[in-house]
């Protein structure tokens, strides 16, 4: 079974530039999560979807960040006008809500540096 895949693995931007991250969850997983993990900190949940619906995006900086999962499978996280404070690893994870186990399986992450 293929794991969660993410691309690109690395991104370097100047402040003000835009960037998109792509995630392909484990096949059959209905729930998909995006996390931001600053260096030497734990992951912080930005947004999560069940199928194509956003369940919680309260931690997503809505003025510059957006996330979609139009068909309930792959997802894209976009940052408009990146800031130096956005420097972090962006992790995607997926899980199966049925059974109430909630174990999340993480992708390798995209390491973003904003200069």
């Amino acid at each position, binding site marked *: 079974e293929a794991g969660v895949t993410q691309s690109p*693995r690395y991104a370097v931007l100047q402040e003000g530039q835009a960037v998109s991250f792509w995630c392909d969850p484990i096949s059959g997983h209905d729930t998909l*999560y995006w996390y931001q993990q600053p260096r*030497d*900190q*734990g*992951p*912080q*949940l930005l947004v*999560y979807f069940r199928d194509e619906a956003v*369940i*919680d995006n309260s931690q997503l900086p809505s003025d510059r960040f957006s996330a979609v999962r139009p068909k309930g499978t792959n997802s894209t996280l976009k940052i408009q006008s990146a800031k130096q404070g956005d420097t972090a*690893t962006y*992790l995607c*994870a997926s899980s199966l809500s049925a059974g109430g*186990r*909630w*174990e*999340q*399986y*993480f*992708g*390798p*992450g995209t*390491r973003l540096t904003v200069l």
Partner: protein
Amino acid sequence: AQKVIQVWSTASRQEGEELTLDCSYETSQVLYHLFWYKHLLSGEMVFLIRQMSSSTAKERSGRYSVVFQKSLKSISLVISALQPDDSGKYFCALWELRTGGYKVVFGSGTRLLVSP
């Protein structure tokens, strides 16, 4: 407010020893799950073990087990027979079940070095 605290930022042991990593949490919810993850050098976050708030069973998975002290809001990860490959960063995470969804908070992690 929810909070997950891992007091020790680093730990080191010799191969073959046993290690306990501590995690404390704050929650006002009745139903919640606690997870331990290992962050590999490759960047991957690997699920290790889970503890349900409603369970009194002593969870175990291979060399991993947990000590769950619900009244103290504490959960410790025990790793037995340490191997150099156990080196990495370990995160504790709290999942709270709430109406319409759930909230998740990770601790800041403990970095472990196991020497041969």
